[in-house]
């Protein structure tokens, strides 16, 4: 079977609490915490970006895969915060990992879905026998405009997945994508912060695509929600994924391990992939896992994975997501956060 041979994640150590953002803008933090089910979010350090996050996540994936990086024939980084407008993130990542020069590289963009897109193409190339191994990464250092609701959730982190045919830890049983042109969220070239189209963000965007992809993959695979050990849905806030999962017939218990958004925030392209990574950290052989991403614009990628015995051999070879979420946290106040995120106008 073709599937994941190694996986890994990375989260920055810096955090800001919902209370501190709410206080800055005169909002009631309890209402926001209850409404969005968020407590705090990750913040990238001054010296971190999508490239450095991708490198650290990929190093963890390589530790678990135990393969020679030189055998990776394709490497794709999905992000909406690539540091350069022109010049790929992937080339820096590949150079840092020792994957160069015999490799195909591209950066993907599709709002929050770019990570699963990278995974989808990496999987497809291995399936087509064009490369022995392929890596797909979803990473972001997302920004919400000051005072906007997105500022409570937009965070930083990422996950990397290496696909191959031998020594697989999670077989890919099926994939499905569901896409329409929906103007729910966008950022024009050169604009610093994204905008969202209010009434377009919930039902016609997130739920339509997540449920569309989820229902379709269940139908064509013949699996029922109760056949799955775990399910992960894109996490723009705490509430949406739980509502979507429930509508599809999944329980809170099936979603809990991958529902990391209350402490992590929404890492955009890294959101559902990192929830999936946290789930791989605890999944058992033969477990079925459903992963459904969402990207504004809009679309969802769905995957069904089946765990193999090898997961027990590899999971302890790199730091687990829970440890990254809960250990070594450094809290910033709003002023420090504004400086870290480049929200303060400085002289050159």
């Amino acid at each position, binding site marked *: 079977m073709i599937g994941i041979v190694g996986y890994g994640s990375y989260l920055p150590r810096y955090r800001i609490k919902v209370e501190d953002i709410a206080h800055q803008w005169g909002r009631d933090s309890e209402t926001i915490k209850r409404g969005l089910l968020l407590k705090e979010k990750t913040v990238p*350090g001054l*010296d971190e970006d999508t490239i450095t996050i991708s490198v650290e996540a990929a190093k963890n994936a390589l530790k678990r895969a135990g393969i020679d990086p030189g055998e990776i024939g394709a490497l794709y980084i999905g992000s909406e915060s690539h540091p350069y407008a022109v010049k790929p993130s992937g080339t820096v990542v590949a150079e840092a990992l020792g994957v160069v020069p015999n490799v195909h590289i591209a950066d993907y963009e599709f709002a929050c879905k770019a990570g699963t897109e990278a995974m989808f193409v990496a999987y497809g190339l291995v399936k087509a026998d064009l490369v022995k191994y392929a890596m797909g990464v979803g990473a972001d250092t997302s920004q919400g405009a000051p005072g906007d609701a997105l500022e409570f959730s937009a965070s930083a982190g990422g996950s990397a997945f290496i696909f191959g045919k031998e020594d697989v830890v999670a077989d890919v049983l099926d994939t499905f994508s569901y896409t329409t042109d929906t103007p729910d969220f966008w950022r024009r070239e050169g604009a610093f912060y994204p905008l969202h189209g209010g009434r377009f963000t919930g039902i016609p965007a997130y739920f339509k695509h997540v449920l569309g992809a989820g229902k379709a993959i269940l139908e064509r695979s013949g699996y029922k929600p109760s056949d799955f050990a775990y399910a992960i849905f894109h996490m723009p806030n705490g509430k949406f994924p739980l509502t979507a999962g429930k509508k599809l017939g999944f329980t809170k218990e099936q979603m809990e391990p991958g529902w990391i958004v209350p402490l992590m925030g929404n890492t955009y392209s890294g959101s559902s992939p990192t929830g999936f990574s946290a789930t791989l950290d605890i999944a058992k052989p033969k477990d079925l896992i459903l992963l459904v991403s969402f990207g504004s614009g809009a679309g969802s990628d769905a995957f069904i994975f089946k765990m193999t015995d090898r997961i027990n051999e590899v999971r302890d070879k790199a730091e687990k997501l829970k440890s990254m979420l809960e250990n070594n946290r450094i809290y910033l106040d709003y002023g420090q956060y504004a400086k870290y995120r480049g929200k303060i106008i400085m002289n050159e």
Partner: protein
Amino acid sequence: MPSPGYRREMPQRYRLEAAKCKKCGKVSFPPRLVCSGCGSREFDKTKLSDNGKIVTYTTIRVAPAQFTTQVPYSIAIVEVDNGVRITTQVVDCKPEDLEIGKKVKLVFRKLYSEGHTGIICYGYKAILI
């Protein structure tokens, strides 16, 4: 444009590539033409371990122009597990968190960028573990 040195030093800055003497086994970082241990000129390519410990450190409070937003920050001499000593910034901590002997891990970070429009230069830094 970044200096030609940045491109040339990428294997060391990005991947911690070092040279191990074929004769006496001494690891040189950055790689050298002649082994400082035995004078041999034959090396195997190797990689520094990304784990190490702090040998000594100092805190920078008055920084060069590129780094003024980062003060106070710490620079340490780190001995990695292959015995090689490197000088590096220690990040994601306060200066008072540092102690001689504390364990660190080398991570991939932005070193500096050439203003808002220039190239971003990357390399290794250390974090406490």
